[in-house]
């Protein structure tokens, strides 16, 4: 059996940053990832990464913007860590070789982003995620960190209330393998594909969240799912917030910059939840165009668009058939980012001993009820590093315990059963029904009745999933099988989202209820916890940590 001190699951920004840090303390680090590291979804991040680098800016003001953006649900101790460590982490990325766009004085350039009081988003044109992903991957090569790519993790091995390692399918050989570890770090990314046409990759299926949840770690704040204001109609692919940061306008069918009505001070650069609601309202009140509003970049001029927004120009032309130099792009709000995830402390430790989490799959919580653009890439780096450090320290301080023998054979049995099952529905049918239900009932504006429908639908899907089949019965590179397993993860998370949302009787950040339109700090200034039980999630609540900023009214 393979054996390591630290096993990192996931090779996006959070996973690789964690592995690099862990390798400073122990050589026995391995990264497992279901796709090659450079294929990870972090590479799709366009707009940028936040840090108060300028002497005219400060980590405090970054922290305040983040707290306000979170609609006061973010834990302020964690937010202070995030913002005060940001400048050092960005400089470190730069020293590693990350490419950043530069200002005329040679320093890292920064652009304005939504909900931010200062232009503090560092970027590389609109391929920021790609350049950081490559820089970290290249550091991993330099350091010689072992990567098992195209290993699909199917479960965590838990014994005595401690995580002892993982079980994964090596896709190329088709074999099920156990990997023993003193500490496991999950860095498996988001789960927005619970919704149809999300901005995420097809592989962002919340695997780690679901694995941790099933293994006894706790999920937190799952009802907070961010809808990004600018996604393309055809398939949900993203147009970066950088497009508004560079000065783009949002227009309705009458050609009005409608944000003047909703956020007169910040206009297009209000927080994402605010902008998405505004767009949805315009569309629902009949001032949309074919289910969309427009983002107009024409006044920025061809040069700026080609230089700073080259990727989104290409995407708009390829997918929507529109060149933003000449025409506004039709866009609409789309499911984008999970503020919720596996509950961790500021060192990445989950509620399950030996298990850590970082990046989008974790909930520290720095984003609370609504994430600011540019803070997620930052979270992957700051908390990836911290989780790497804490996990390697734990691994160096404990003796290797035994791996639960039965775990591998149990998993082998579960998977062969699924492979052999003869009659039933294929998983993608269920995935589509889940997404349909989520879009209809758990969207930007929520009401009890619809959420109840969603809960019932998810329960039905859970039952049907227990009888689902795969058509590909082979072992080697069986993506029909992995798709089916991923659907199972999504259903788990959809259930936690819908139940959490139904229970939370207020409107806060991305969770906006027509039947409870106000934020209710008295009753709901608290995190939702979801514990796995065989009958679905059991909910619990936890106070928000507050340091400097008492809740205040939020307007932009």
């Amino acid at each position, binding site marked *: 059996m393979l054996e390591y001190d630290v096993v990192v699951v996931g090779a996006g920004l959070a996973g690789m940053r964690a592995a690099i840090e862990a390798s400073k303390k122990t050589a026995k680090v391995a990264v497992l990832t279901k*796709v*090659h590291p*450079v*294929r*990870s*979804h972090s*590479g*799709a991040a366009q707009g940028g990464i936040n840090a108060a680098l300028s002497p005219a800016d400060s980590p405090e003001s970054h922290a305040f913007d983040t707290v306000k953006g979170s609609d006061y649900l973010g834990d302020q101790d964690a937010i202070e860590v995030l913002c005060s460590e940001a400048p050092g982490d*960005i*400089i470190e990325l*730069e*020293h*590693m*070789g990350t*490419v*950043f*766009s*530069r*200002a*005329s*004085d*040679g*320093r*890292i*350039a920064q652009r304005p982003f939504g909900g931010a009081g200062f232009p503090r988003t560092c970027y*590389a*044109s609109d*391929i920021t995620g*790609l350049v950081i992903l*490559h*820089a970290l991957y*290249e*550091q991993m*090569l*330099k350091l010689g960190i072992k990567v098992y790519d195209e290993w699909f993790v199917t479960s965590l091995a838990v014994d005595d209330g401690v995580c002892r390692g993982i079980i994964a399918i090596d896709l*190329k050989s088709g074999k099920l393998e156990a990997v023993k570890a003193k500490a496991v770090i999950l860095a498996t990314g988001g789960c927005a594909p619970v919704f149809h046409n999300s901005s995420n*990759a*097809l*592989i962002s299926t919340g695997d780690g969240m679901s694995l941790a949840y099933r293994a006894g770690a706790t999920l937190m704040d799952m009802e907070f799912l961010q809808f990004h204001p600018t996604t393309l109609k*055809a*398939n949900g*692919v*993203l147009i970066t917030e950088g497009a508004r940061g560079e000065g783009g306008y949002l227009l309705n069918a009458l050609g009005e910059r409608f944000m003047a009505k909703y956020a007169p001070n910040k206009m297009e650069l209000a927080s994402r939840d605010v902008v998405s609601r505004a767009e949805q309202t315009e569309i629902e009140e009949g001032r949309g165009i074919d289910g969309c509003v427009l983002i107009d970049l024409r006044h920025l001029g061809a040069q700026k668009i080609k230089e700073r927004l080259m*990727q989104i120009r*290409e*995407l708009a032309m*390829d*997918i929507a*058939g529109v060149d933003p130099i000449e025409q506004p792009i039709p866009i609409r709000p789309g499911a984008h980012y999970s503020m919720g995830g596996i509950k961790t402390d500021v060192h990445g430790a989950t509620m399950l001993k030996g298990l850590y989490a970082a990046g989008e799959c974790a909930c520290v919580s720095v984003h609370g009820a609504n994430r600011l653009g540019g803070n997620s890439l930052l979270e992957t780096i700051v908390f990836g590093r911290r989780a790497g450090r804490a996990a390697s320290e734990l691994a160096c301080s404990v003796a290797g315990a035994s791996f639960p023998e039965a775990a591998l054979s149990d998993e082998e049995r579960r998977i062969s059963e699924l492979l052999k099952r003869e009659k039933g529905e*294929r998983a*993608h049918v269920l995935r589509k029904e889940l997404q349909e239900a989520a879009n209809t009932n758990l969207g930007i504006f929520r009401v009890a009745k619809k959420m109840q429908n969603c809960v019932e639908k998810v329960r039905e899907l859970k039952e049907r999933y227990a009888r689902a089949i*795969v*058509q*590909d019965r*082979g*072992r*080697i*590179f069986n*993506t*029909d099988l992995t798709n089916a397993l991923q659907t199972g993860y999504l259903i788990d998370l959809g259930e936690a989202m819908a139940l959490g949302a139904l229970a939370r009787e207020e409107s806060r950040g991305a969770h906006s209820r027509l039947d409870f339109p106000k934020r209710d700090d008295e009753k709901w200034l608290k995190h939702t916890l979801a514990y796995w039980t065989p009958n679905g999630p059991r909910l619990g609540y936890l106070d928000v940590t507050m340091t400097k900023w008492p809740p205040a009214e939020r307007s932009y």
Partner: protein
Amino acid sequence: MLVSFKIQKFNPEVDAKPYYRDYEIELPERATVLESIIAIKEEIDGTLSFRCSCRSAICGSCAMRINRCAKLACKARVADEVNRHGSILIEPLQKLKVIKDLVVDMDPFWRMIEKVKPYLMPDPNEAAPERERLVDPSTTEDVIRNSLCILCACCHTDCNVAELEPGFVGPAALAKGQRYVADTRDGATDERLKSLSEPHGLWECARCFACTQVCPKGVDPRESIRRIGHLAYERGIRSDEGIKHAQAFLDSVKASGRLNEATLPLKTKGLGVVGMTPMALQMFLKGKVPFPIQRPVPDMEEIRKIFELTEKQR
């Protein structure tokens, strides 16, 4: 629209060799090839295997041969393919071992990328500054252009040289190489240029531009290769046969306006030319060895002007 696909299939667990299977499926007007094969997998054949993730041409997963040209399936439009070719033929990328259907073993490709030491190597004698290293924005064009590469391997697997010479490091690795050569923060430029100029390196490129043509991201690897070659030449890194060959070309044309094919091998290979004797003999017997002494072209003045002009434009 109803579209027909012919897709190469191979499952090592049951098939002795690859075969083609035909599919027909109803698709929306603007469907991409990726959307189509996903629909085929869901509606017709659950065993059909391929890689995909981002759907937006940024993760590099879905490279495959579409109508005999390496492309990203998520960027290729079905309607365009049908308009040009009448139907759609999908095969795995060339040169790499097939694992299953359209999934190929990418390891040899990753090994090539690793060869160019794709990480920043700052000057070891300079302490890292407390803040970021300063970079003049006017110097970043090449770094950004090469950073657009998503390592999809389209260029590498459609490269004509790599077809004949599997050791050739290939256009993607060389573009990665230029990304670091052009980075003003890097302190290993000469070391990089030397290693990129070694056999199987940049001089093996045949300048056919296939890489530039197939690149789905506009990276233009051939231009990257040209620029590292140029820099190597300027910095006096001229020991490889490739660059001697280029120099011999230049000298010959400069001297006579003609390519002297008889003296080229000697100038390129030096004494190593002895090894070519058997081939030379065969060529001689077939009357293929040109006469070493050539008369200059009639209008040498024109040639001189061309050289002057290029010199000026550099």
